């Protein structure tokens, strides 16, 4: 399923359709603007971000004890707890729970963790059918494509393409592309799924160590439809989803939906604590690289992420390259700092898919210094030798140029001469900067030359 092409190659493919790129760019920027309006209407917004970040710092520093406390309370509440080191172990646990009850069909609400673990494929190979019930994820599933955005899984698709998929898979009339009508069709189809599945799996947004409850946030109501009709309810969560006390939910629920889509709160914030009579509840705590990330002081703050997607909506590279170009379940700036921790070689290209403009860090509700981490990952990746030769060479050339005033002056002069008198030498396919860009018109003199001349003349006047 994983692609081997790098971000630049995949982005180039996405960039071939300029009209679509502009549309994608605009759609995400609109969401960013909604986030801004919502944040500006919230008193003490910056203090809220500060508090959220500090709570998460505390979680990271005391994770061991919170995990033990959470497990104790879950058990007291009648929830069965499992621990999984990696994707394989997580998938095995889910399979064993379903197998014990002879269940062959499951409905799932949005969970990036199970996407990352390849749970659907694993279960499918063992004869268990999984349906993703979040509308966007359902659309991506029937198209056999991973989500391109953690909050808006099919943001890159046009309604006509979705209409075509529905025509093929749900038998709607050909050409039907009205969002309301398509949603009604999915509602009817998935309602039948909810009513007939004995098992439901959800992700976890926040888990409270103090009480042993966990909170799942959706706008569609799909997590609740699945969970409350199921006889077996499973929740999969990464270790970092813990928060210390129930009252801390107030801080995070105020920030999450506002940062994600500019909404004051998700429509549903469901607090699951104990199974209903006759129901089984299982919760799987998944490490999958989190404990390793904890050991990297420069990068451990990325464990604070509450998966709002705000950094993606604001990122100029994400908006113009599309989520699928990141060849990782979690795309965008946050995906680019999480992925190298799991596999540095496979994701060596991702920290370079950024302009380091810092917009991601400015919108992050838990104040992860995302652009700073992107910069630091680049250094680690180059040092470990995971970067392409072409990039290493050009970086060495650049550091040599900036280190010597003579070479710098000569390089500037040569560059300006080429742009003015021999533009064909750079306006060609061998120059990656020329792709999707026009080379700039070159000034007649360098800043150094201008400064020498003007400052000298000014000094003369004085």
């Amino acid at each position, binding site marked *: 399923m994983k692609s081997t092409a790098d971000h630049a190659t995949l982005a180039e493919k996405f960039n071939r359709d300029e009209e679509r790129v502009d549309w994608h760019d605009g*759609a995400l920027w*609109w*969401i960013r603007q909604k986030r801004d309006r919502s944040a500006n209407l*919230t*008193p*003490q917004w910056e*203090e*809220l971000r500060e508090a959220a970040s*500090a709570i998460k710092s*505390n979680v990271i*520093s*005391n*994770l061991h004890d919170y*995990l033990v406390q959470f497990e104790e309370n879950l058990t007291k509440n009648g929830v069965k707890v499992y*621990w999984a*080191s990696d994707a394989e172990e997580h998938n095995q646990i889910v399979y064993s729970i379903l197998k014990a009850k002879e269940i062959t069909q499951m409905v799932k609400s949005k969970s990036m963790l199970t996407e990352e673990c390849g749970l659907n494929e694993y279960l499918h190979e063992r004869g268990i059918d999984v349906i993703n019930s*979040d*509308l966007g994820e359902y*659309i991506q599933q029937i198209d056999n494509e991973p989500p391109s955005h953690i909050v808006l*899984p099919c*943001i890159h698709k*046009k309604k006509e393409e979705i209409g075509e998929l529905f025509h093929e898979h749900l038998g709607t009339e050909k050409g039907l592309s009205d*969002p*309301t009508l398509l*949603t*009604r069709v999915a*509602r009817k189809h998935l*309602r039948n799924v909810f*009513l007939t599945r004995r098992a439901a799996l959800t992700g976890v947004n926040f888990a409270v160590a103090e009480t042993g409850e966990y909170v799942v946030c959706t*706008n*569609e*109501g*799909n997590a*609740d439809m699945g*969970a*409350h*009709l199921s006889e077996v309810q499973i929740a999969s969560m990464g*270790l970092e989803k813990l928060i210390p006390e129930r*009252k801390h*939910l107030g*801080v995070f*629920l*105020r920030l999450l939906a506002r940062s994600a*889509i500019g909404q*004051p*709160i*998700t*429509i*549903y*914030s*469901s*607090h699951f*604590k*104990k199974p*209903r009579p006759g129901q089984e509840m299982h919760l799987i*705590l998944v490490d999958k690289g989190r*404990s*390793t990330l*904890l050991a990297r002081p420069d990068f*451990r703050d990325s464990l604070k992420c509450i998966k709002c997607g705000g950094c993606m909506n604001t990122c100029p590279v994400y908006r113009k390259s599309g989520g699928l170009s990141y060849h990782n379940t979690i795309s965008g700036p946050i995906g680019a700092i999480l992925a190298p921790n799991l596999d540095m070689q496979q994701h060596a290209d991702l920290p370079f898919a950024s302009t380091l403009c810092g917009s991601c860090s400015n919108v992050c509700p838990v104040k992860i210094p995302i652009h700073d981490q992107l910069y630091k990952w680049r250094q680690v990746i180059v040092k470990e030798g995971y970067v392409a030769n072409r990039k290493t060479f050009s970086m060495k050339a650049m550091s040599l140029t900036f280190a010597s005033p003579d070479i710098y002056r000569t390089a500037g002069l040569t560059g300006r001469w080429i742009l003015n008198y021999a533009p064909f030498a750079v306006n060609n396919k061998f120059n990656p900067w020329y792709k999707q860009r026009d080379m700039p018109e070159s000034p007649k003199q360098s800043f150094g030359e201008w400064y020498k001349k003007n400052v000298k003349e000014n000094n003369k006047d004085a």
Partner: protein
Amino acid sequence: MSSREKILAAVKQNQPPLSPLPDISMFNVVEVDIASKYTDTFTGIGGQVFAVTQLDTIKEIVPEHFDTSKRIVTTIAELNDIAELISANVDPHGFEDVELAIIEARLGVAENGAVWLTESVMGQRIIPYICQHLAVVVYEDSLVSTMHDAYAKIATEDYGFGGFIGGPSKTADIEQALVLGAHGPLSMTIFLVK
């Protein structure tokens, strides 16, 4: 060593020195007119609000706005002449055909329009999610300004399941076009009781 022991040992070894929890007691918003703030917010997210002074008024509003030939359920004893009382002990799948559910909220939050419900006021956990239309009775004196105040009121209450619901279910997954009624209710109504 089991995965549990391995994970806990690695976490213990790798976690940084203790960082203190912040004080979050400064997030206080004092609303002058909390009822109108709540009404504005809830209307803004696509719900409708009826201000009533007694529960009997609800009996007049319901037939005007909902299809009473279909199934209506409630947990509020006073409404048992217009709705069937929800049994806590039947199969939740049996509520699939509910047109309207009328339940009572524990509290309402002015900053986001959400109501807090626990399973004791839902009758069954599935009720506010499976019905086609949801109506919630909120008493004005149960309104709070922010989520911080809401959790201060919920405090250490023990429940099996509880949830905030802040409007009709919705999605914007198809080209960012807002559609009310994704998997949960198509509409949500608040009866705000003085």
